[in-house]
């Protein structure tokens, strides 16, 4: 059930596209679609992973953001150098709230910013000498680091520095893994290619390091892949897996360490949460180490139970019993939460526009609360993401890829959702329009939202946003009609 019929939604898209010049209209047309569950392949209705149209407002990031910010950044005991000018690292520092355990600056470095701070002379004469010097300095100042990654910013690729050679030499001298990552910001159309490049760097520079090492494995070893521990997400997922009898040997990469990553090829099953950013490495491990992988979804009790059972399918009866035990244990708690919040949230409409996995994964959590997702879209999704989304979304709902600021605003004006879930760049526009808003990238500084414990927080947050009394006070008292 959707707020609009299929024809109305199509008319809405056509109306919004009206303001564009002919060429832009033709381009944007392909990125907006009405969902139709009968379609098997998304590319028949929507185009994705294409260059953004010049001149419109897009909220996409760059390859550097995908590599340093998403995949590598959360690895806590490594130091990640933002190799290039200072800004890229400084303005993205600690913004993603990847929580970790450790003493920052001593044995963990997650929220710190390391940069080679390129100046004009480094661009003119090359920055390799500076990089070598920085690597040495870092190792002297922070001797407990377990490795260093060199995250290239745009100039590195433009001036043609040989960071691989510097890294190899330094790795030998310092006896630590030093990983050059060619994630210059100009590569690709969005952060998505940065994820891929980062995955390839892990494949080439990290995974083979312990191929010959002995590892005491159990039949129940799993790795959690693509959970970045935003607000503690990975922790609230991990406890469920451990409770059902599995042993989590690695977390990629939220609260993760390089040692865990090197040991991942010993896992019996790779569990992928964020498919978009880490499916590459899972496919590689399947080929090289014969580790099967599966996607799971830990948003909302329905999907958690579904996922726990699906995970247990890969193991023996003790784990299957364990999964049932975990589900039964939390059922009472979930019923209580739903009983409390569902009456307050029933029937509310939500529009989402996020990245990675959330535009489809969170739908289940909203449905558990009786809410309805009427529009969703990815910043940087590919065809395969939309393939999966079509099944999760209701018929004749709106799907938008790399939506522009203008389109999103117009959609909201017409569809009038009760809640929007998107990022910081959209937040204040919509709040000023008087629409309740939650940041679904960083959980609006709340969280975790994964797992059973996360759902309790999720439900509370949605309630406190939508039913906040401030939305009735959008008009200044002196502008209101005189009280009757």
């Amino acid at each position, binding site marked *: 059930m959707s707020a609009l019929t299929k024809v109305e939604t199509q008319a809405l898209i056509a109306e919004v596209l009206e303001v564009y010049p002919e060429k832009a209209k033709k381009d944007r047309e392909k990125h907006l679609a009405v969902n139709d569950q009968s379609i098997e*392949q998304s590319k028949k209705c929507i185009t994705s992973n294409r260059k953004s149209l010049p001149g419109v407002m897009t909220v996409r990031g760059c390859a550097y953001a995908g590599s340093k910010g998403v995949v590598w950044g959360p690895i806590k005991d490594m130091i990640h150098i933002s190799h290039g000018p200072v800004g890229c690292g400084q303005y993205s520092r600690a913004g993603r709230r990847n929580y970790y355990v450790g003493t920052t600056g001593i044995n963990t470095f997650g929220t710190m910013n390391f940069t080679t701070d390129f100046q004009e002379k480094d661009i003119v004469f090359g920055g390799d000498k500076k990089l070598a010097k920085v690597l040495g300095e870092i190792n002297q100042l922070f001797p407990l680091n377990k490795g260093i990654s060199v995250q290239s910013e745009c100039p590195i690729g433009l001036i043609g520095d040989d960071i691989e050679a510097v890294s190899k030499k330094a790795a030998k001298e310092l006896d630590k893994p030093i990983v050059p990552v060619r994630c210059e910001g100009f590569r690709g159309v969005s952060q998505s290619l940065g994820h891929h490049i980062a995955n390839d760097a892990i494949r080439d520079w990290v995974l083979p390091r312990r191929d010959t090492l002995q590892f005491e494995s159990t039949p129940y070893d799993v790795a959690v892949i693509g959970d970045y521990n935003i607000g503690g997400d990975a922790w609230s997922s991990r406890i469920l897996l451990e409770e059902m009898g599995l042993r989590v040997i690695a977390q990629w990469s939220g609260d993760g360490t390089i040692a865990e990553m090197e040991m991942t090829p010993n896992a019996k099953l790779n569990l992928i949460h964020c498919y978009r950013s880490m499916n*590459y490495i899972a496919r590689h491990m*399947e*080929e090289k180490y014969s580790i099967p992988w599966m996607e799971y979804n830990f948003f909302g009790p329905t999907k958690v139970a579904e996922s726990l059972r699906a995970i247990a399918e890969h193991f023996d009866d003790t784990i299957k019993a364990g999964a049932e035990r975990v589900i039964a244990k939390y059922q009472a708690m979930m019923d209580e939460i739903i009983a409390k919040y569902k009456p307050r949230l029933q029937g509310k409409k939500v529009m989402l526009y996020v990245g990675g996995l959330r535009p489809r994964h969170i739908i289940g959590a909203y449905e558990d609360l009786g809410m309805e997702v009427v529009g969703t879209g990815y910043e940087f999704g*590919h065809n395969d993401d939309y393939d999966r989304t079509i099944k999760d979304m209701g018929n004749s709902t709106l799907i938008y890829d790399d939506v522009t600021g203008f389109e999103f605003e117009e959609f909201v004006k017409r569809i009038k959702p009760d809640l929007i879930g998107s990022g910081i760049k959209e937040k204040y526009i919509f709040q000023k329009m008087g629409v309740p808003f939650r940041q679904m990238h960083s959980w609006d500084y709340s969280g975790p939202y994964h797992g059973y414990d996360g759902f309790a927080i999720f439900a509370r947050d949605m309630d406190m946003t939508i039913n906040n009394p401030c939305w009735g006070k959008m008009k200044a008292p002196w502008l209101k009609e005189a009280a009757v």
Partner: protein
Amino acid sequence: MANIMIQRGSKGEYVFYLPKRDLEDNIVSMEFDTPEKWGGEIKLNNGGSYYIEPQAAPAKLPISLRARRLDAAE
């Protein structure tokens, strides 16, 4: 020539994966499928077809290969 990956699906069928295009599809027919000679022209569910150099059947799947596009669906 494109890098592709061939793997087994849940029902034992071959699945074709082309990372550059995010194309993941079942293989409906493969020209040679014996232990000695494996590969040749492969046809996908979406109508596309690719060619991989015939070779001895791989010991295990998934396997990464180079494939030539004969006729893409889109």
